[in-house]
């Protein structure tokens, strides 16, 4: 870039106006170079992300069914059907809320507990950390969900452990009372990434706080409530938003454990599973698109809600240093 550009070699164009123009051109050229560099990404983004999003926004108002070449503009009919004429939609919503509202807090609590346990300087602590993180690497995969289903199967290890304890063996994924808990447990088990974030946060809390509190006679529980939790609130906030979004969109575990059907009694018919069935099994792509947009709105609303509420419970260092 150090080479003189042709513009700079020009002679005679020294008026204020043309200097301004040439500066603008230079800036434009610099920008174009930049755009050229991001062009591969931009191309992929536009064609594989933006275009499908735009298409789905359009399809949400049509009766597109993939197979027939014609599609009709149906206005808000898809949303009307969703809200008032599709009882299964509401079963999916209920199953998803049940899942997200239980799995997310449980997972965060578990991640925090583990992070505190691993926040010391014993030997082998790094290998422990790695071991506890492992489930999150493989957690979202199909293979783990398959193993999970077999573990809770009639002849699986879960029953083998519980039977001597006097609990009758059962098919956990076939009972509407227990099936949702299987996917909740699977989600909680994938606590690795929030755990790592909490662990980083715990390392940031100055040791003096705990020492001062100990001098004043605070117990472990008080230290946890008065120091650890308030100091971690930014990270709790961050993890909460991330996990909540993930919780509303989870698909693999429900798909594998229910064999793609949401059975028994639609108790594991998570929203994205129903969306998938509608789009790729019944081929009601227009309706599926409108469901996707409804999901976006709801997740957006929840995220906004958490952001709004954060001013009441999230403490940043700037506040405490008043």
């Amino acid at each position, binding site marked *: 870039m150090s080479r003189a550009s042709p513009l700079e070699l020009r002679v005679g164009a020294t008026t204020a106006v043309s200097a301004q123009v040439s500066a603008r051109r230079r800036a434009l050229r610099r920008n*174009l170079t930049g755009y*050229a*560099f991001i062009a591969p990404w931009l191309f992929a983004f536009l064609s594989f992300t933006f275009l499908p999003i735009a298409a789905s926004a359009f399809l949400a108002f049509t009766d597109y069914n993939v197979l027939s070449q014609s599609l009709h503009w149906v206005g808000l009919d898809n949303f009307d059907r969703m809200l008032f004429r599709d009882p299964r939609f509401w079963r999916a919503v209920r199953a998803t809320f049940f899942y997200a509202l239980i799995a997310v807090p449980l997972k965060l609590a578990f991640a925090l507990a583990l992070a505190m346990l691993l926040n010391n300087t014993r030997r082998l602590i790094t290998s422990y950390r790695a071991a506890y993180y492992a489930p999150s690497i493989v957690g979202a995969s199909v293979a783990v969900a398959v193993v999970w289903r077999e573990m809770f199967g009639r002849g699986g290890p879960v029953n083998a452990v519980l039977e001597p304890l006097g609990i009758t063996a059962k*098919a956990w*994924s076939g009972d509407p009372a227990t099936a949702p808990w299987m996917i909740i447990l699977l989600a909680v088990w994938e606590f690795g990434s929030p755990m790592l974030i909490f662990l980083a946060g715990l390392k940031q809390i100055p040791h003096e706080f705990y020492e001062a509190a100990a001098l004043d006679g605070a117990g472990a529980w008080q230290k946890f409530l008065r120091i650890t939790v308030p100091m971690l609130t930014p990270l709790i906030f961050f993890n909460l938003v991330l996990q909540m979004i993930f919780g509303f969109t989870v698909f693999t575990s429900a798909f594998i454990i229910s064999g793609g059907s949401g059975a*028994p009694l639609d108790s594991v018919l998570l929203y994205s599973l129903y969306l998938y*069935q509608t789009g790729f099994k019944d081929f009601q792509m227009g309706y599926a698109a409108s469901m996707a947009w409804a999901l976006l709105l709801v997740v957006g609303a929840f995220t906004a809600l958490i952001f709004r509420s954060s001013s009441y419970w999230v403490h940043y260092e700037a506040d405490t240093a008043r």
Partner: protein
Amino acid sequence: MRRIALPDWLRLMAVLPLVLSACSAPAAPSPPAAPAQQQATAAPGAAKPAASGEAVQLRFAWWGSQDRHDRTIKAIQLFQQQHPNITITYEFAGFNDYWTKMTTQASGGNLPDLMQQDYAYISQWTANNLIIPLDDYVNSGSINLSDVPKSSIDGGRINGKLIAVNLGNNSQTVALDVAAFEKAGVALPSQNWSWDDFEQIATTLHQKLGIWGVGSGLSDIQMWKSLYLGYGQWAFTPDGKGLGYQDDQKYIDYLKMLQRLQDGGAAPSQQEDIAQYRTSSVESTPIVPGKAAMQYFWSNQLVAAWTAAGADRKFQLTHLPRPKGGQAENYLKPSQFISITSQSKHPQEAAMFVDFITNDVEANKILLGERGVPISTKIQDAIKPMLTPAQAEAQNYLARVEKDNSPLPPPDPAALSKLNDSIFLPQLVDAVLLKQTTAEAAVSQFRKDATALLTSS
């Protein structure tokens, strides 16, 4: 004078396509190139008969098991040996993925020339003009159906036009574990046994042997449809827009029988049915490891089940039980079809392959009725000496069904899978058998919901 220098960004742009194409080259097996290639040979190839020697490329897609893939690929190789100018590329998948794939290809105008079709889908695909009538090819002799009984052809007719050729016949069945019956001292049932006999036999087997009398899947939607066939009725109205029967009590009785069997331990509980068996393959049904003495499935599945169970076992197939005094619930179902799509550039050559898979003795010695009993009687005789006990039993059973059956019902309404997923399973059979509601309440609610769904679709 100004020196003309290529701006940096322009030079970068010039290189980009090279980089991009280098990246994508190995990944894409050039799907866009294939149609172009076909285009080139299209006009002359379609006009002339295949004997012209023009190089022709066909695509064939099917769903199925690994066994089917292996056999079909071998048969394709045989066809290519006989017709050196024709190359057939193929793609296959499991049943559900197959339909996702085909539907996507249909919307992209990229369908294969030949596709396996299902009885539940042909009307929908015909209505959308995606598969073409084959009558002209039959009349011109390109597809020879002279050795095929009419009853095995008619399932592929829509509005009087032949749009799909049956690849093999099939029927629902109850498989009996002969050794278990002997051990329990229970006589094998006759083919016109009733549901009362069935319940009694299953219960006796359970009491004598301690295993399940009957295995999984009795709450399948197919059994609901078959139950009404036993009364000479079809589950749906002729236009598929509503339920075709009036008497709900018959299904209520059936559900109550299932409930008794499950509660008594003579059949797997519904929890277990859902968790272990509903979505798994026939190889994992309870009869295979000897956990049940009887099992419901489709006759062509016996081969896979018997293979998994081991050659030392002995199974016999029998009709579905029927209502007391009613007719057979069984019918001869085309297990699958082969169709030529409207997007094919070489329908003539595709028709030759349809003829090949129907009539070629050597090809069928490779395929060995894996898709169901071959429809050509000549082929049936030709492959008979080569059949394993399982294949022979399936073929003999079909011969028995041929003499004692209900006529082939109309194709299922397009909304059947939606009806099953969203109402029949969660609101009816699972709700009743998981004891969330009574059979009476669920069945009458089902009538309302199912009618609403069927009318609106």
